[in-house]
């Protein structure tokens, strides 16, 4: 699942402009040609190495799923995806958690980022530091902390009315505890993408212009800032989705079985080919989704600029 996360991170923006767009017009012709040849070789090598680095593991994984040793080629593993026990509940849990995380991250961060744009430098530093903190805390430490807190709650909350809430927060169908952990883990990247989107806007002036036109503060944010933040919000959602789908450590230690945990469990339980086939399918789905997103935003841009 690490592949999902990586691909989401690298494709968040539009494709970077290619470095070499033909030879530079200056300099003697021979020099340019020689330079061109060198550049092409350099690029080729880099492309080859990078390609091998990404494709070989994927290719071998693919091979593993379709090679049914004694009989040869077989698509059985892919057929089993639809019948294998536990996959759908696990996927459902992961998607539910992802949706919850995305909503919570929006609710937390969008007002915060707007406030940072309007407020003082001090506030900005505080928010930035807070949001970066989860990067420095190792996931395993976070999990250990959560476990400790849960144990303490279990020992001390039992006689209090909070116990029902506490149990509900650990409900295996929708573990709020896990959701909260994911929100914390998503903060650093989500903050960065939202803040980058906000940087392109003159937030203060836009808000004031909206207020001047009769919109209250909240209404101004919803009707003027959010629409202009759409692509940043999409990026945030995507990164968060990838993070939640691929997260293993916290979920596994706390004893829940979302997607990633199911794959690993299945693998060690002898369902090897199916679980790996699921990984491949999820990778493909991720790519398709990314492609759709980038084509969609490109089309919108073109529609806006060709009026």
């Amino acid at each position, binding site marked *: 699942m690490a592949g999902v996360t990586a691909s989401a991170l690298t494709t968040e923006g539009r494709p970077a402009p290619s470095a070499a767009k033909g030879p530079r017009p200056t300099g003697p012709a021979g020099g340019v040609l020689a330079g061109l040849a060198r550049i092409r070789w350099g690029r080729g090598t880099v492309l080859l190495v990078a390609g091998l680095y990404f494709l070989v593991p994927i290719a071998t994984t693919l091979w593993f799923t379709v090679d049914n040793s004694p009989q040869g080629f077989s698509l059985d593993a892919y057929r089993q995806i639809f019948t294998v026990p536990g996959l759908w509940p696990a996927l459902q849990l992961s998607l539910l958690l992802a949706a919850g995380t995305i909503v919570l991250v929006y609710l937390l961060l969008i007002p915060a980022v707007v406030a940072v744009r309007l407020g003082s430098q001090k506030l900005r530093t505080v928010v930035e530091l807070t949001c970066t903190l989860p990067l420095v805390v190792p996931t395993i430490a976070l999990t250990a902390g959560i476990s400790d807190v849960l144990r303490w709650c279990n020992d001390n909350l039992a006689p209090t009315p909070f116990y029902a809430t506490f149990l509900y927060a650990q409900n295996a169908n929708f573990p709020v505890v896990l959701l909260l952990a994911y929100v914390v883990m998503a903060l650093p990247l989500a903050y960065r993408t939202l803040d980058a989107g906000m940087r392109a*806007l*003159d937030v203060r*002036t*836009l808000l*004031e*212009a*909206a*207020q*001047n*036109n*009769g*919109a*209250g503060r909240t*209404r*101004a944010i919803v*009707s*003027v800032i959010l*629409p*202009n933040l*759409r692509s940043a919000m999409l990026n945030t959602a995507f990164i968060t989705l990838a993070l939640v789908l691929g997260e293993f450590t916290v979920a596994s230690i706390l004893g829940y079985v979302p997607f990633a945990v199911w794959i690993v469990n299945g693998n060690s339980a002898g369902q090897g080919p199916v679980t790996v086939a699921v990984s491949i399918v999820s990778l493909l789905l991720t790519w398709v989704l990314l492609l759709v997103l980038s084509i969609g935003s490109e089309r919108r841009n073109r529609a*806006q*600029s060709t*009026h």
Partner: protein
Amino acid sequence: MTTDPAPATTVAAVPSPAGPTDSSAAATSTAPVTDKASGATVQFVGLRRTFGATTALDGLDLTVNPGELVALLGPSGCGKTTALRMLAGFEMPDSGQVLVDGEDVTRIPAHRRDAGMVFQSYSLFPHLNARDNVAFGLKMRKTGKAERHRRADELLELVGLPTHGDRYPHQLSGGQQQRIALARALALRPRVLLLDEPLSALDAKVRENLREEIRRLQQDLGITTLFVTHDQEEALSMADRVAVMHAGRLEQCDTPAELYARPTTAFVAEFVGTMNRIDGVLAEDGKTVELLGQRLPVDGATELRGEVQVLTRPENVRVTAGGGQGAIVTGTTFLGSSTRLAIQLPDGTSVKADLSTHDAAALPAGTAVTLSLPDRPVLVDTRR
């Protein structure tokens, strides 16, 4: 892209003073969209505002009459924007009041104030086309879609961009964006229009066109307008009255002609137009001053005594050939119909004098000349 239409007339540097009565008379000769509320009276009363150690407003008092265009003029940082933002509701005064038609609006939130604002930076909503930008306020007021679009198109027509409704901000030039912003500011039929240096990001030609159009629109609509600028030509050419601000206070508020001819403080005198400073000596009673071999009455009462400097405009300095005073022409600058002479007095002071180009031709550099001032009250200030 369509360019901004050419100006009908050129803007005179100093127009004849047009009082509020003139503009309200013009307001009754209605154009299409002038189904309007008449402008409001705006009063700033003792406004104070400090940001940490800086004092942005230090007791500002100013009254703007209905339908009047007042230009707020002053050096950078004197509090012009802060004053405007208080009227728009984006800034709270530490003390003092903002009155609109006699009613204190200080506590009313920005979105319920009856003031349309055009910002200095481009402020159109990037995700909306020009028509929806203009119609934004109407949407907030829950006006129906058809009515909204009708009104927006009407306003686009009014600002001279009837065919640009479908364009997005990034497809419009700076001048066009500010026109749309003006249309947007007018969409809710505000009774006060606030313009914070709306032209400062535009090039000279577009500025001049837009300046005139804003003035025409403002007069047609009869809307009370505050126009912030630090370009004195802009202020003098557009405004009914010009309010000169300095360090958070009002220095003087008068018609352009009055302001230019009879500045009441040394700051205004030097900030508006060009001023000469010539050494003189005040009489014991402080009522007359002696300079250049003349004795002239002093304008207003002064606390000063003894050695002072007299402030006088280049066009008031008379120059005749011939020595005696020891003044020498050191250079000439051709300005068109007039020529500006630079003259050095024996004490080293440099004086500028504007003469008709014909007269100046007889006084090339190096000529010994005599300076005199017309026998009118003059403004005096401490020596520097």
